[in-house]
């Protein structure tokens, strides 16, 4: 079976608008959570999010293209360009034929729809520019990246709420491993900061009034975040042939469904996802030294995820550093798996495990070794990144360290 490796990373996030800045913030434990500025939330029950800062789309897109792009596409496309440049790949016709773009997004162009509906319903406008449909479609990032680089292989978008990006990355991995593709640009992006969507989250009562404290006993819920992350994936053979830098091997992918409840997660389903990812990767639990947790900081997720980790890793759980980097970049929904895969891959590559910020107090219900507030140097052989979605859909990625 072909080995698949990651040779390019691009990130746009609340803690950095490129992969280097993102990583620097992560290891410093620097949180990007703060007051929401893009929408007036003065009358809402929550006021904070992890917003992207100092990102001007005009610097990245010409006027004609800008008209057709929702912010979730800005983040996805800019991250894809960075990943492709980082990989050093030069496409030729043969490679374009066997390269695809596989992206995840939960909301797609929600900001575009929000604006459209406001004009129709609130302002009573009868007409709107003919841009809403192509801007808002969830596959917009996959389509734009495929057009920009002329990639004509399997290209599509997955939408499974908070697991969207992990499902996308997992499909890209398998398509390369089985030979359908030779190269994939894959990841996810999300732009959830619009009034309608914030109100919808407000009614779910899972968003914290202050900040995101995963696994900490005093946690008060999740914090929404914006962003995108994309990867260049190819076979180990092609990476070696062109002398490319390899960040890590993507070694395994596991999926499961809780078949239980729309919003209450079940540890059996999460555990099954992790177990299948390890089996797919040919990894023993003892080889795993880091878990980038789903860790939303809701009352329900963190104890459930801790139990699931214990079910899979048994007593070895005590030797695994666990962190939820959502404490810094927020919960980016359909982009979460991608941004967190970037954190996981960079952790393996740099022998440094990013911390779980805002950790104040251990919770006996969350019996895992949380990397509290400070990055932890560790040469880890393999790492796992979890995504668990509303609706009980779980997607888990496993990565193996590669010595260049």
């Amino acid at each position, binding site marked *: 079976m072909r080995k698949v490796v990651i040779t390019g990373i691009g990130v746009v996030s609340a803690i950095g608008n490129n992969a280097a800045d993102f990583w620097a913030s992560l290891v410093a434990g620097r949180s990007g959570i703060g007051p929401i500025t893009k929408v007036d939330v003065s009358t809402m029950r929550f006021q904070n999010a992890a917003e992207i800062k100092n990102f001007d789309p005009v610097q990245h897109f010409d006027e004609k293209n800008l008209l057709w792009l929702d912010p979730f596409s800005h983040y996805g496309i800019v991250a894809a360009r960075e990943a492709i440049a980082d990989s050093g790949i030069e496409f030729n016709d043969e490679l374009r034929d066997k390269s695809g773009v596989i992206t995840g997004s939960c909301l797609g162009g929600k900001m575009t729809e929000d604006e459209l509906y406001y004009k129709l319903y609130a302002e009573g406008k009868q007409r709107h520019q003919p841009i809403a449909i192509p801007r808002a479609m969830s596959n917009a990032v996959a389509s734009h990246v495929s057009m920009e680089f002329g990639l004509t292989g399997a290209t599509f978008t997955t939408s499974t709420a908070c697991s969207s990006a992990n499902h996308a990355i997992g499909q890209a991995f398998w398509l390369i491993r089985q030979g359908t593709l030779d190269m994939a640009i894959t990841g996810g992006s999300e732009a959830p900061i619009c009034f309608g969507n914030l109100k919808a989250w407000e*009614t779910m009562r899972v968003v914290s009034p202050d900040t995101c404290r995963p696994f900490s006993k005093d946690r008060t819920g999740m914090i929404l975040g914006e962003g995108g992350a994309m990867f260049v994936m190819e076979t180990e053979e092609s990476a070696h042939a062109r002398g490319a830098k390899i960040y890590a091997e993507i070694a395994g992918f596991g999926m499961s469904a809780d078949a239980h409840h729309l919003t*209450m997660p079940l540890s059996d389903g999460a555990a099954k996802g992790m177990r299948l990812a390890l089996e797919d990767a040919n990894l023993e639990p003892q080889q795993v030294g880091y878990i980038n947790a789903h860790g939303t900081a809701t009352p329900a997720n963190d104890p459930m995820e801790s139990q699931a980790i214990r079910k899979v890793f048994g007593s070895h759980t005590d030797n695994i550093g666990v962190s939820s980097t959502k404490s810094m970049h927020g919960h980016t929904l359909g982009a979460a798996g991608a941004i967190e895969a970037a954190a996981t891959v960079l952790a393996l590559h740099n022998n440094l495990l990013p911390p779980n910020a805002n950790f104040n107090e251990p919770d006996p219900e969350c019996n895992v070794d949380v990397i509290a507030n400070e990055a932890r140097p560790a040469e880890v052989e393999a790492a796992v990144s979890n995504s668990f979605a509303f609706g009980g859909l779980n997607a888990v990625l496993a990565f193996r360290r590669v010595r260049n």
Partner: protein
Amino acid sequence: MSDESVATRVINVFAKFKKMNPEDIKMDTSFDELGLDSLDGLNLIFELEEEFDIMVPDDKVQSMKSVHEVVEGVEYLLAHPEEQPTNAVRPSA
């Protein structure tokens, strides 16, 4: 506002939500006894917000797990309007 007591109106909201006879719902009936899970609870709180034109803060929701706890919570919020965020208005686009 109608002349009905808060308790009667709360029980009527529960009865309508669960398609039950109001007489079968007592003050000490719990969410569990009514078969309400967490998501049903959220929807029920929304129905109460509509009925009483109030906004229930997140931390108050945690203490509403039975009919009498809901009645006490609603009465408190009606008496302390300053603890409710005002009805949100869409800001300019």
